[in-house]
């Protein structure tokens, strides 16, 4: 396969991954804004912060990061930054989910299946791992 064809295929893969990530994070971010109290309650159940001042700010930052990734991933020159932020964000969510594996959360509305599912099981974790893989692949392709 010639270098030209390979480059075109790589570009198509990069744009497909970027569009998919962007759309997914946009949808996820909108959902979190719409049900912000539910998202806050969901985060409070993970118990890495006490319910209150810091958790409110942290929840807001998490939503802001969703939109940051959604936008930056679409720009070729900022894609690497988006991937690094995405990998850090996904690693954070995966760590939390692994710490609460097989647990069911009562105050979780079940409306954020991605990254904060009501029942932490293999299915819930696999989607988080999938996006970690997508970010890592995109970073590899963009940096290469």
């Amino acid at each position, binding site marked *: 396969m010639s270098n030209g064809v390979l480059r075109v295929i790589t570009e198509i893969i990069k744009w497909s991954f970027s569009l998919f990530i962007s759309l997914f994070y946009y949808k996820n971010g909108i959902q979190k804004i719409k049900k912000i109290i539910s998202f806050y*309650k969901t985060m409070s159940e993970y118990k890495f912060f006490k319910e209150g001042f810091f958790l409110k700010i942290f929840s807001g930052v998490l939503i802001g990061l969703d939109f940051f990734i959604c936008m930056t991933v679409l720009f070729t020159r900022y894609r690497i930054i988006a991937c690094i932020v995405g990998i850090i964000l996904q690693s954070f969510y995966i760590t939390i989910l692994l710490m609460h594996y097989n647990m069911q*959360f009562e105050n979780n509305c079940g409306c954020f299946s991605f990254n904060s599912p009501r029942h932490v099981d293999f299915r819930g974790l696999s989607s988080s791992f999938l996006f970690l893989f997508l970010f890592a692949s995109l970073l590899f392709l963009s940096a290469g």
Partner: protein
Amino acid sequence: MFIIIIISITIATYSTVRLFMHDSFYNKAQNITDIDIKSLDNYNGFLIVMSKNEMLNGIDVFKHIYKNVSTKGERTQVLTYNENISEAEVNFFKKFNVNFVPCVIEINGKHNKKYILYKVEDFENE
């Protein structure tokens, strides 16, 4: 990049402000429902008052009202509540042996507010 960062910070700030505003709405809701409990004294059954304000968290307010009303020994229970009931919230209420029968009633009480009332039937009476 600067514009993207500004947009992200704006969204994060907006979300955080909404979360902080929730507390003040929650406190207001407690006051309103406390008054409405008295106006609904004659209602023979359980009531859930749904506020159209999306800032309110149903479970928190319900816990507050449930605690207060049950200690008074009244049968009528009133709740200021979100319009959209989530699966987790429905499951929460089921623990109190209640069921939902939706009906819309307009109350022109002290606050002249329109509520959506959900009549809640006791499972034990069925």
